[in-house]
Structures are given as C-alpha cells and as structure tokens.
C-alpha cells in the first residue's frame, strides 16, 4: 500500500503526513527496508483495514510507527508503567516518570486535605517505599526488571 493512498483513505492532515513520512524514512534506514515493506507489516495493515474512524486510525498508525521507530524505549516505558500500576498506590499519591525516559527522575506527588489525610497518605507511601525504590532502580537501568536489550 502506498503512503499517498493511505493518507487519502484516512484523510490525514499535512502535519500528520509529514510526521508519518519522517518516521517511515527513519525506520527504513534503521532496518534497511523500503517504506513499502514497512507499510506492509501486519500491525500497520490491521490499522489501515480496520473499521474505526479516520482520525482514530491515524492516531493508531502514528503510535505504531513510533513504536517501530523507538522499540526499546516503548518496551521500557511499558514495563515501567506496568510496574507503577502494580504498586497500587492509593488515591492521593501519584508517580510520574520522566517524559521519554529522558532522565532518571521519578516524581512522587502527594495530595492530602487536612492532617489526618496527610498522615494516612504518608503511611501508605512508607508502606510502598521498597517498591518505589525498585521502580527508581528499574528506571536507571540498574535493576534488570526492565529489559531494554
């Protein structure tokens, strides 16, 4: 399938076409393949042939292209997000990982109203300390729990 056909059928905007083309070119160089071969991949064909809305499918396509362009980053980010979810932090505690894993900074936000709630939230946070430490270790590549190779 050609990019022009895809752009027409999904009614892509100019900016989306530029982003897609740029990602496709970079993937092609990284993998030594043609753009046509990349567009023929099942994961992309499934999106092109699905019944969803045009804008939704464009978003899906661009997400998939980013995954193909940054495969290890995507995998590491998914593993870390799963780890955050698995910690099961209570309401009032929010963990934010750095955008694109561009640093090793883990941000922990506490929201509490009044002293009682604060005490409860801090106690909950203390109970999760070891898991948060492990999360930080995973982010900085020290802990093997996050496989990037």
């Amino acid at each position, binding site marked *: 399938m050609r990019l022009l056909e895809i752009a027409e059928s999904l009614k892509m905007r100019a900016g989306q076409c530029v982003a897609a083309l740029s990602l496709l070119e970079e993937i092609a*160089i*990284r993998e030594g393949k043609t753009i046509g071969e990349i567009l023929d991949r099942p994961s992309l064909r499934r999106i092109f042939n699905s019944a969803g809305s045009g804008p939704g499918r464009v978003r899906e396509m661009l997400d998939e292209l980013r995954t193909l362009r940054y495969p290890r980053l995507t995998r590491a980010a998914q593993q870390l997000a799963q780890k955050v979810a698995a910690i099961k932090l209570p309401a009032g505690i929010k963990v934010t990982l750095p955008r*694109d894993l*561009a640093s*090793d900074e883990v941000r922990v936000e506490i929201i509490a109203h009044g002293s009682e709630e604060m005490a409860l939230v801090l106690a909950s946070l203390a109970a999760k300390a070891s898991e948060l430490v492990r999360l930080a270790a995973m982010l900085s*590549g020290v802990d093997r729990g*996050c496989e990037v*190779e």
Partner: protein
Amino acid sequence: VWIAAAKSNDAQKMKFQLDTVVIEESCRASALAGRILSGTPASVEVRYVIDGRIAARPLADGRDHFGAGKRRMVVLTRRGSFLMGCPASSARFACCGYLVLVLASNCPMDCSYCFLQEHLANNPGFQVYANYAGAFDELDRLTHARSGRSFRIGTGELADSLAFDSLTAISRELVGYFSEHQNLMLELKTKTDEIDNLLAVEPRGRTLVSWSLSPMRVFAQSEHHTAPPESRINAARRVLEAGYKVGFHLDPVIAYPGAEQDYLDLLDCVFDTLPGDAIAFFSIGGLRMTPGLRSEARRRFPSDSMLLGEEVLGEDGRYRTFTTLRFRLFAKLRERIVKACSDLPVYLCMESASAYHRVFGADPPIPASLGAELADH
C-alpha cells in the same frame, strides 16, 4: 579506508586528501609551512593570503562546506590563547579537569556524529597554527603560577592530535617539551594509527596517547577515513612498549541493537592486547547531540543508521539514548573494565553527577582533582 593522497615519493607522508593548502603571508617562512609544503604532493594547490582566518570560512559555492573545509589546510597565526578549558566542561556535568591546547582546528577524518560539524560550521577550514611555539610560553606561565598542581593537557578536542602529524611533526616538539615538565601530562587523542613520530622521541612518562574506540559496526558505518579499531589498539600497544602511557575513550557509546555485546567484545580485544594495569584510564560517554548537530549530521550522512538511534531530548537540550538503556550500557562497560583490572580509573564524559552516581555508586570527584589524578596516574 585510508585515503592515499598521492603516489609520488614526496607525498607518501600524507595519508589524507587535501585539495588546497592556504598559507598566511606572515607564516610563509615558518618552519611549519616549510614542513607542510615539503610533504604535500604537487597536485595540491598552494595559495598565499593576507589573513588565513578568511580562508578558513565556508566557501561561497558547494553544499558540504564542512567536508570541503577538511580538505583545505590553512596555515596561519593563532591570534587568541592556545590554552583553554575543555569546551565540553560544564557545571551540569561530572568533568575530568581536562585542559585543551588548541594547535589545530578541524580534522581530516569525518565521523558522522562529530560535534565539530556544528562547532566549526562558521570556520570549517582545517587550520594549523604556525606560531604554536607560543603554546609553550603559555604552559610555562601556567606551571609557574600553579607550581604545586598537576595538569592533564590535550590537543585532541578541536582536532585529532595525530592526523597529519606525519606532515607537521608537531608531536615531536610537544612530547619533548612535556618530557621536561613533571607536573604536566600531555594527552594526544586520536583515531589514527599515525605513531611514527612518537616512536622517535622519548616521552619520559609525561605523554599519554589515547584512542577513541568504537566497535567495528560503528567504525564501518560512521567513522570515515579513521583507522580500524584493531589498528588503533595495536598502535596503543606499540606506543606503550615505547614508553608512553595509553588511555581509551569509549566515546561516543552508540546504543544500537546488539551494542552491548559489541562493546564488551571490543573491551576483550583491548585486554587481550594490552595488560589492564598498563592502561591509564577509560572514559565513557554516550552519544549526545544538540538539535543543530543532529540535523547537520543527518543532512551530511542521511543513510547512517547510527544517527537514528533511540535518542530523546534531555534536560540539557541534547539528544541522548533514553536513560534506562544508556545507564545500563555504561554500568556493563564499567563492570567489564573493573573485572579486567580493578584499580583502572574509569570516568564518564558529559554526564551528570546523577549519572555518575548511578553507574559508579559514588559521587563524582572534583574535576580539578580528577584531572590531577589522571595526570599523575
């Protein structure tokens, strides 16, 4: 890989291609200009100009100004000081206290990731300074002013220290000068195996030759006109046997798929060739590019997949491999080095104190003290 400049006898000294040699009138009678002209093949155009700085600027025609600049050698007088702090140093980073002696600017080799593509965009001509003896005066002043301190001083920041050394022979004078100064350590940093001049002089323990090393895949794809990794390691063994200290820079570490094993194999190759306890240091630095450098590098080398890794924009405005992968690679490399020789100094280049802590499990040393330690090691 090497470019043979010409086959004539008088040009056999020169391993890199030159289109033109431009000599500033005031340098016409200099010893450096004489050596360069005697080693330059007749096919290379020679011109004389009033102000060499103008000849170092980008040419009006042509699309690859930087590439063309590499083939235009300009012999001129340096107007500013020769000695400066490392341009890579910053309060943001855990630095190594390196001082730079600027004896040349630009490099005949052409690594796709090289920061000079951006740094020298406005004056890409390959400049060599005929008044380089002035650098020795500056070093004299430094050693007199700070007589109790040791300094590590390198010539390989804005140029390769040994490229064209067969033509300029500056290394002989440098090694001779440093051999007489016990609180100075000269670092000649290179990607060549151009060591013939070094083998003819006695360093007396005051010159260290360091090689930037990359696995074969990076060399083949990105390090144009450089010596192959194995040749660099063998050249290190030869200078070590001749009484020089040697060090290695794993810089830039490029995190392509399979990189970890390739870099570990490269380290094995080093330790199979040289005893670990004879190596002065390893530095490790990840590929980092400002947006401007990234654009220029990709424009000049559009099919180089090493420039299309999984880099993301960091807080310091540079693209680097995402943290999890980068720190893991650094830790693996450091682990292998320490396994081979537990007291071999290893440091990070252009990484934060936080990165240093993650990889080494300790706070980074103060730059000046690390510089002195590396100078004394």
